């Protein structure tokens, strides 16, 4: 089984649009949407609704108000300012310790230092994982509840689920849609993949971010190819991106010109290769997929 991730560093360069096309071109495969902050793949590939599973991230501290002696040791120990004793204007304790859930990292230190055993850690529902059928095969996506942490753990769960489904159904390709950035969800989405498609636009921001995602991929020894999206909008910067790729050993899999058909396809919830098969942009995407596939040996 091969796993391929689509990444970009910068957001909004076209990761999801291309991945939906790749899925349509690949034949049956498993899709894993690892942009758990803002998962959009099912809008284009189908499979928004499906079987849901709760996701529990880090725990959260709970105070038993009956046991709390208001000593303030938890407040003193917590490094995230997530637990506090309400105080009267004079400073004297006015109630049992209170947890600020959004600040709580779930480390458990407050419970360790509490002399009354008044604090325990509880599971916190942090999101939902969805397994559904897209038009191209099974899809796994997830919704992190707004403001929750630990997206890396949820990404890992999405990927494990997708791998399990692929193994169970004898499918030999998992396509992973990554998130922007280079932090924890991205690192989780590229662990032991067989290769990466990078998507860039010809802009100074995309080039800057491409350099950083490339450094990350090098560190994890992931081979990468590049699709240059909207290359005709700023050909000079496009050339700089291609020059960077040559230097960095990133295979240039294809170039796709700006085309209003992409927006029309998106408005209809279809990938470009399904919405306008045989059109110039669809052909360019197909060429990029074939080139990248060969280079990454998938």
């Amino acid at each position: 089984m091969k796993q391929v991730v689509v990444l970009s560093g910068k957001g909004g360069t076209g990761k999801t649009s291309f991945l939906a096309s790749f899925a349509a071109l690949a034949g049956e495969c498993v899709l894993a949407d690892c942009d758990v902050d803002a998962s959009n793949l099912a809008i284009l590939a189908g499979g928004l609704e499906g079987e849901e599973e709760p996701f529990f991230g880090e725990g959260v501290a709970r105070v038993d108000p009956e046991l709390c002696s208001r000593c303030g040791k938890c407040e003193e120990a917590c490094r995230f300012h997530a637990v506090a004793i309400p105080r009267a204007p004079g400073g004297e304790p006015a109630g049992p310790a209170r947890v600020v859930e959004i600040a709580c990292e779930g480390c458990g230190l407050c419970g360790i230092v509490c002399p009354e055993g008044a604090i325990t850690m509880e599971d916190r529902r942090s999101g939902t994982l969805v397994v559904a059928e897209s038009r191209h095969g099974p899809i796994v996506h997830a919704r992190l509840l707004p403001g929750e942490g630990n997206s890396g753990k949820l990404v890992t769960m999405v990927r494990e689920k997708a791998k399990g489904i692929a193994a169970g159904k004898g499918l030999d390709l998992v396509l992973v849609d990554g998130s922007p950035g280079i932090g924890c969800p991205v690192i989780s989405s590229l662990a032991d993949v067989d290769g990466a498609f990078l998507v860039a636009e010809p802009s100074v921001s995309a080039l800057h971010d491409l350099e950083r995602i490339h450094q990350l991929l090098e560190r994890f020894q992931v081979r990468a190819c590049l699709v240059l999206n909207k290359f005709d909008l700023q050909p000079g910067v496009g050339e700089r991106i291609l020059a960077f790729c040559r230097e960095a050993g990133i295979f240039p899999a294809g170039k796709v010109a700006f085309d209003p058909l992409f927006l029309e396809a998106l408005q209809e919830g279809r990938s470009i290769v399904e919405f306008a098969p045989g059109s110039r942009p669809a052909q360019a995407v197909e060429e990029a997929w074939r080139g990248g596939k060969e280079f990454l040996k998938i």
Partner: protein
Amino acid sequence: MAFTLAVASGKGGTGKTFVSVNLALAASTPVLLQDCDVEEPNDHLFLRPEWEGERRVSLPVPEFDMDKCTLCGACRDACRFHAIAILGDKPLLFPELCHSCGVCLAVCPTGAITEKPRAFGTISKGRRGKVRFVQGKLDVGEARSSPLVEAVRAEVEPGLPVIADCPPGTSCPVVAAVTGVDFVLLVTEPTPFGLHDLDLAVRMVREMGLGAGVVLNKSDLGKGEVEAFCEREGLPILARIPFRKDVARVVSSGGIALEEIPELGRVFGDLWERALREGGR
């Protein structure tokens, strides 16, 4: 406290950087621009500030005194982030996973653990004209960006209003960036992706009890779904910026849109005034 405005989005690539930089330059008073997208900080590419200095940012991580460590594994068992393993005859720290919470110190029965600072990012400062600038840049390979976002947000100057350019998404780094702000501008585009992610961003902002308004970028491309959503949610649309190839060209080559396309100066000047009013100033 001076007025603090966050520029956020949910979806990436909707134009947060474009809005933040141009807004900072169009504001009627000097402002501090904070680039809180520490994984991919881009404001500097456009602002091209005169740099005034930088410093490394660290967090404490455990250090093991092997004369005292008995390899009992209490630290490993207590660490909820799986940042410590016992391998053979020594404890092994995975520093990228460490949350610097201090649990390992608290549970070590022999006092073998102390802390040492470990750098994971850089904060740089600069200025361009009346715009003061600060950015965070996470080291490549580091997983946790929120503490660096917090460090950038803490860099304020007395009396100077702040524009905080946030990372994409709705999870912990964004929460770190919008904590304590007076108002949030949500930059979106009228596509199904933009709408879907705007919905998530609005829920995050509401959960945090913050007021928000929308900047509709590429406003002429849609079919009115985003406007209908804003109407239903009672979200004011504070600016509409139509898609223009000349703007796209300026932005993609690292130029300042309002310097090259003067009518944008008024758009962003008005946006700043409206954001101040909406934020209660």
